[in-house]
């Protein structure tokens, strides 16, 4: 049993960033926007406090052998047989992840204070950072799939809003809408999966939900639904084309989300729901196929990119694909270790993405080229026609976006335009003039 203050520390660590978000939000709403110093002090202090609390929990847990432990906070609501329990699950993996999330967010928050100085969206950025931190901590510390879903949604929301951070330009706004659409589509998998798990197992609590193995088609469908959610969040094929687009936000948030944390959420879901996959070889095969396919195509596509952030984004996608393969093979410990290391490395590299230009020049002056050995090998073995075909496909990221656009998006747009025309015809409304979107404020 965990001592009381450790439980309190764990809950405080997860709740503090949300408290910061609420107080900063209410302050900005009812009074003048706070100064940069006040904003950054408020948010950063909660981030560092949260990290300190988690460190204390981890130390205590490691020494006393107190985990795995459930920390029950309360019941949000109950209806009939069902009750939404607010419960954290602290075990080895989740403590590791909690520490990673808290540390990375605090460091990027520190980076952002000078980086976003004098930006008109300073307060908005820190609001979203605090909300993201609470969402991500909830996601990795959740004791049930329901609570994980809440964290998942918060992360998706903040991700969208930070991609569209520069909302005075149309490019970021369009990219953020694309990101949001894919997130919603794939979150359907998580929602349906959670409902299904309730129906089958009676609870989504991680300590009880896997008591009885599933049978029949449910055993395959449920993991596949969860896989859909993981694909969306972790930018795997075929729904991964949003990742390069998401680089429209500030470098700091790109590093935090698409280098370090948010993009690994799918892997975490697979790790947590591991027991579900253990009994379904078909589901595991699907995970491995998705992961391997993404790893290979993203690596090839990444080799032709000439800009820093997209190249790093595709490299991230490829490594996450490898993590999917590891999860599919049941090597959860390895996947977790891979996740932690990769998160730190990629976050750091993305924060330093603006240096890529001078680093490349330094390489050139040292007489080194950036071509890899594999490229040389491929160029010697494959005929030029095949190389050119492969290059073109890689440049367009294997046409995934085009295919999704033509097979899904255009038909939907055409259908909605048709409905719009019918509505106009039936209601006989005079055509009201639309105003053009503002390009600059």
């Amino acid at each position, binding site marked *: 049993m965990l001592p009381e203050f450790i439980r309190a520390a764990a809950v405080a660590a997860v709740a503090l960033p949300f408290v910061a978000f609420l107080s900063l939000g209410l302050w900005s709403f009812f009074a003048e926007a706070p100064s940069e110093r006040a904003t950054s002090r408020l948010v950063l202090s909660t981030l560092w406090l949260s990290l300190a609390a988690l460190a204390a929990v981890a130390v205590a847990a490691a020494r006393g052998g107190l985990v795995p432990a459930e920390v029950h906070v309360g019941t949000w609501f109950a209806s009939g047989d069902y009750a939404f329990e607010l419960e954290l699950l602290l075990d080895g993996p989740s403590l590791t992840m909690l520490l990673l999330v808290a540390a990375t967010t605090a460091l990027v928050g520190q980076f952002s204070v000078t980086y976003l100085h004098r930006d008109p969206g300073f307060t908005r950025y820190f609001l979203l950072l605090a909300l993201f931190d609470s969402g991500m901590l909830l996601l990795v510390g959740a004791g049930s799939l329901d609570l994980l879903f809440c964290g998942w949604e918060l992360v998706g929301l903040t991700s969208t809003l930070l991609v569209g951070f520069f909302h005075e330009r149309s490019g970021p706004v369009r990219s953020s809408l694309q990101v949001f659409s894919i997130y919603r589509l794939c979150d359907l998998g998580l929602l349906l999966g959670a409902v299904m798990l309730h129906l089958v197992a009676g609870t989504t609590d991680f300590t009880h939900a896997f008591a009885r193995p599933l049978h029949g088609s449910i055993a395959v469908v449920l993991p596949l639904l969860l896989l859909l959610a993981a694909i969306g969040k972790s930018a795997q094929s075929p729904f991964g084309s949003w990742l390069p687009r998401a680089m429209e936000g500030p470098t700091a948030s790109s590093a935090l989300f698409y280098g370090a944390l948010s993009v690994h959420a799918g892997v975490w879901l697979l790790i947590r729901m591991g027991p579900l996959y253990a009994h379904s070889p078909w589901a595991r095969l699907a995970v491995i196929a998705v992961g391997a396919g993404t790893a290979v195509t993203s690596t090839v596509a990444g080799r032709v990119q000439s800009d820093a952030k*997209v190249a790093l984004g595709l490299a991230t996608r490829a490594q996450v694909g490898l993590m999917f393969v590891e999860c599919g093979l049941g090597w959860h410990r390895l996947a977790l270790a891979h996740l932690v290391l990769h998160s730190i*490395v990629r976050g750091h590299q993305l924060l330093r993405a603006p240096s890529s230009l001078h680093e490349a020049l330094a390489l050139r002056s040292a007489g080194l080229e*950036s071509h890899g050995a594999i490229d040389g090998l491929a160029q010697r073995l494959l005929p030029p026609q095949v190389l050119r075909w492969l290059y*073109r496909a890689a*440049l367009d990221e294997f046409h995934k976006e085009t295919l999704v656009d033509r097979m899904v998006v255009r038909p939907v747009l055409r259908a909605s335009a048709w409905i719009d025309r019918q509505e106009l015809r039936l209601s006989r409304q005079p055509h009201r003039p639309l105003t053009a979107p503002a390009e600059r404020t």
Partner: protein
Amino acid sequence: MLDLAERHATEAAVSPEIRRIRAALAHASHLLPDQGPIAVFIHHNTLHAFEKLPFHEAVARGSQTYQARGYLDEDTFRALYESGRITAADLDEALRDWGPEDRPLGSCFGSARRLQRAAMLSGTAVPPEPVLRWLLAEDPAVIARRDLWRSALAVTASRPDATPSVAARAALVARQELEARSVDELVNPLLVRLCAAFLDQGVAHWAMPDRDGGLYRTWVELMSVRPAAPRPHWLVDLDRDLDSLARLSPEEAVVAALHEAEVPGSRWEEYVARALLALPGWAGMFSRLERHPHERAPGSPPAHLVDFLAVRLVLESYARRTLASERRDLHPAPAATGAIGRAWRLFSIARHLGLGADALRAWEPVDREGFERLDAFDEAARQRVWQEAYEGHYRAQLVVGLAQNRPAVVGPVDSPRFQGVFCFDDREESLRRHFEELDARHETFGAPGFFGVAMDFRSFEDGDFAPLCPVVVKPAHRVEELPVEPERGARFEGRRRLLARLRHSAHGSSRGLLHGLVALPLLGLSSALLLPLGLLAPRAVARIEGGLRDLLLERPETRLTAHRDEDDDPRGFSLGDQVQRVAATLQNIGLTRGFAPLVFVLGHGSTSANNPHRSAYDCGACGGRHGGPNARLFAEMANRPAVREGLARCGVEIPEGTWFIGGQHDTATDRITLADLNRVPSALRGELAALRGHLDVARARQAQERCRRFASAPRGLSPDGALGHVESRAASIGQPRPELGHVTVASGLVGRRALTRGLFLDRRAFVISYDPTQDEGGAVLERILAAAGPVGAGINLEYYFSRVDNARYGCGTKLPHNPVGLLGVMEGSSGDLRTGLPQQMIEIHEPMRLQLFVEAAPSTLLAICERQQGVRELVVGEWVRLVSIDPDTGAMQLFSRGAFRPITPAAEPVPVATDSLSWCDGRDGFLPPARIVGAVRHAA
């Protein structure tokens, strides 16, 4: 489209249409940005397309062509007026300069000038109709003066409205813009990714194959590869046309696309310009690389603007066809119509002047006429007047400062102890001032940072030669930095390569799949250490890294291959050249006798972390690079006995006991490194130690002065604390403002140091040393202006335009920047290549033209303008404001509207302070010139 194309393809040689395309391209390429690959950032006039026009006209043309603002907006100017930065006197003077004579008007308005002033101060810009309605219904200030509003309506109602064709034309233009934007949304992402991959110079691991045919040919071939790729919905017809497209040359494809879009021949130029200006950064890069192929690595694929245009127009034709088939009904919002707009303007003016409703109703015909003439005093005219007032205020402060700072006898320092030659960069102004405040016998000079030695230089660590001189000069000499002991040099080189290879295989290859996996544990450990430490203690990390590098690499002692013994050796300068270079520089700055025992020459450069625009902080006179090697070379040449003999024959007497030392000043960290110290004669070692001590004090104080402009620097920093702060700024990866750069620049002062010594100029001036008493015909001055003029004006104008409209002329905020190729930065994953300066570099800049004060008679200056075309365009077009200071009397005259006009300095005394730091202690913002009298002035 393609049947016409086939017909064109079979026509003989260069048809008139192709000739017209070439002419259109030549014209349009002129309008594009002229910034090369960003590793070497060269400040230049952003509106170089219109540099032959006078300033205000060029700004108006630029606004029209680029849809950009050419001045600060009126609300900003009004706020500056409220804060006292612009006074009523400045405004009156600017109005006097702008317009016709003042005419008396009726009892309502008094005089035309009074009316104009009211128009400027009251905000007569008419808001859009919905805003106007809201103001009339809700704004309490407006509601309180309802009576006045009704009078204004009544009085202006009898004029007929704006003709309907104006409103229709506005709607047509708006619709065209919307359509263009929709086309851009489809075409731009695809085109950008194609251009980035094509122009890439070694960032991608796998370069685009077969690029030798140019962009158009490569694109068609890539699209033609079978099996066909899935196409976006608007490009599905492309496969059908690929064969015909392949048979055309790029120019023919352009012609065919123009015919298909049914553009009449007379509008081809305009259409081509518009198509190129949809992605000005990328188009500008193609144009630049076409004209300056040496800016790329050898073996790079050919870049031609016509290829870019051909691909763009072909893609546009498909996009237009798709959009035409989709029904879109868009009606833009109407602007406020004529009568209401006029009434609003009258209402604003009347409210500002405090007129009553009855007084307005009783206005006389002459009042009405005056008001109607205000139509000519439109927004552009008002902004011009504001800008002149804005500049006039600062210029007046500088005039009175210079006038009151002039010593009774203008001459050099008596028996100087240390002399320093600095670059004329505005950041060096404060270092020079602090150095001179330490002792009356310290003397400083300002010269262009390449110190007259234009050379292609390869440092010990570089792979290539790079020119270290202003961009307009082509160096004719090559200099290398070689190790004194070749074995140590070879060892260093080997270790450096090894380190680079390790780093590359760790970071660069983490993009590979399995390679990345294997490298992950080591990288994870290093990132887990470096990331938190680098963020929380950047200075310590930089120091440790530097220390480790020195320890492991052991940089050997080096020498420059400065001297050319035999004539056929391509390296170095011959003896005659050396004498000529040193003599020219020393004559330029007026240092031909009275040498101190130690003379140091400092070039400058800058270091910053995580900054693609790093080169924008470097020395503009060295072509956007570090000037240390030039200083070192100059000092070496000046120390050579044979050179000194030659100099004596030219009239420059350097005594035997004088020694020159070269070095470099890092403007970000304020570190000063002196070179070749082991060669200093033993007799001067004591003085050398003293010099270094003085330089350390001066640079610490300069850091303290700089820190008052940094919001994150704590108040009340000591000089050493300030040095620590600026070092951590330069080393921090999260700091987009590592130093101030030229953000404070506003003026240039060419003349003897005695005129400006002791004058606190707040790091706003390029201070160039020049002695008119040693320059009879003005030949020296001509050399100086021809070299320094374009550099200084380029820097000033780059900052001006990036400040007044950062979104169009500058490159926006640094936050979403994504370095692409080795060319520049774009926003996000497929945006335009951004040119100009980022938001973070120009935030506190006061956008003014360079106020250039030259100590020379007006006749001399006019003669130089006759002979030098570049200087003439700048001065006569009023891109810089030239003020002549008479060398004998100190009387000043401003060149304005074609002639020199005398200026009378104001009578109020200039503030006085004991030293620079006490003057600027604890004060933010720009400070007016002050006289530093406490410490020391030069004797006599």
